[in-house]
């Protein structure tokens, strides 16, 4: 196992060295503000050790979150914050436009995935989901949840249709319904009862709130009907909260 990990590590290392080896072209921008501050690292806490004056040009080498590594004409390198870099001029002499993800991208998103956690009738649950938007209001989602209870553990897998009534709201409610299967496995320390797989149907409601960049916060409530082989069907309530990202 360790040998395998090392092999993977070395492969990644080599791949990275190779990708750094071939020369590439960078964007060049001209400083339009009185000066551009270069930090030693990609965060506000790192000190400013260099400034570039108005009229000078810098190459943009890479980006890490809100920070850009630039190289000056003299060959000095440093990190510039997005707020300052947005005030530089691009190759055409216009203000540099930096690709950023905002609410517009959120409203026109196609794919979304995330992780939520909460309570499933007394059991802790960890859920993963992936969704695809058919229109601004309608999307389909696949959910896989692991149930971690005191007496039993299990899995639920469901396919859902989600309707978002006011997608343009920053905090937007949605309604959902779906179907799937639940597998319940009693704990090994308990007297053995057989594992069960049953069909489930669900309805639910929740809210999705856009936070920043590619992230959304989600909270939801779902009510399940477990179609057991016994005479009575079981009803289970679930609530959970978590975050998702869209792309």
């Amino acid at each position: 196992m360790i040998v395998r990990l090392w092999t993977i590590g070395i492969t990644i290392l080599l791949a990275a060295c190779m990708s750094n080896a071939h020369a590439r072209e960078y964007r060049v921008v001209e400083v339009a503000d009185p000066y551009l501050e270069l930090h030693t690292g990609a965060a506000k806490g790192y000190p400013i050790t260099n400034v570039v004056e108005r009229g000078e040009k810098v190459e943009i080498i890479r980006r890490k979150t809100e920070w850009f590594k630039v190289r000056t004409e003299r060959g000095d390198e440093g990190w510039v914050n997005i707020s300052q870099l947005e005030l530089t001029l691009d190759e055409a002499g216009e203000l540099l436009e930096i690709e950023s993800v905002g609410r517009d991208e959120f409203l026109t998103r196609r794919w979304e995935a995330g992780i939520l956690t909460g309570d499933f009738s007394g059991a802790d649950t960890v859920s993963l989901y992936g969704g695809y938007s058919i229109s601004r209001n309608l999307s389909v989602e696949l959910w896989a949840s692991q149930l971690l209870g005191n007496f039993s553990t299990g899995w639920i897998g469901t396919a859902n249709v989600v309707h978002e009534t006011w997608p343009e709201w920053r905090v937007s409610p949605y309604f959902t319904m779906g179907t799937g299967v639940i597998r319940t496995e009693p704990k090994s320390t308990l007297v053995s009862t057989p594992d069960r797989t049953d069909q489930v149907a669900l309805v639910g409601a929740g809210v999705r709130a856009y936070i920043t960049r590619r992230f959304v916060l989600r909270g939801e409530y779902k009510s399940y009907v477990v179609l057991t082989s016994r005479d009575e069907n079981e009803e289970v309530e679930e609530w959970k909260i978590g975050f998702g990202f869209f792309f």
Partner: protein
Amino acid sequence: MENRFRILFLTAIAAVTMLSSGCSSLPFFGKAPDTEVAEAPEQVIEPEVERREIKKPKIDTEDFEIGAYGGLMSVEDFGVNTVVGATLAYHFSESLFVEAAYGQTDTEETSFELLSGAAELLTDDERQFRYYNASVGWNIFPGETFVTRNRSFNQSFYLIGGLGSTEFGGDDLFTINFGAGYRLLINDVFAMRIDFRDHVFDTDLLGEAKTAHNLAAHLGFTFFF
């Protein structure tokens, strides 16, 4: 020089126009020199109408961090053993990141099993401790580490916490993890991480329900992409 050529050329054109229009119908005659002369310079000096194409190379964004780690993990009652794992993180600001991790370790026999010589509590497969989790990390105290007089590395500490699931002793257990770590940036894309984490879950594996703390310390290498 160029001017002289232009005059010469214009004269020649004018002459040709006079001659050719002389052969053509009369109403055209009065108009001809004007239009022809106006057109002529266009052929001589070709205006640069083609727009200069501006190349805009894409800026390389490195917000994802993938890595592997190895270290020691103490599983309560089941000894201290080597742990290995992998992580995938996304940094969404200079201070905040989310991370998914998967790790596993072997565990030893409990002291009771060893001393009493009784039957083993767990099978070999149940003895494997596997976990996955999703956590949120917060970078604090950014700074520089000076290795030699002229060489320094950027570094920062981080606090991290999250939840997930552990498969151990034949059960899946809801697990909370929290801890802190140190990230040293070797260069812009490689980092070394030292991480201390506590994985907490409730278990009744040894008969009595209790909260188990499983401490792990590991060294990892990560790559930003």
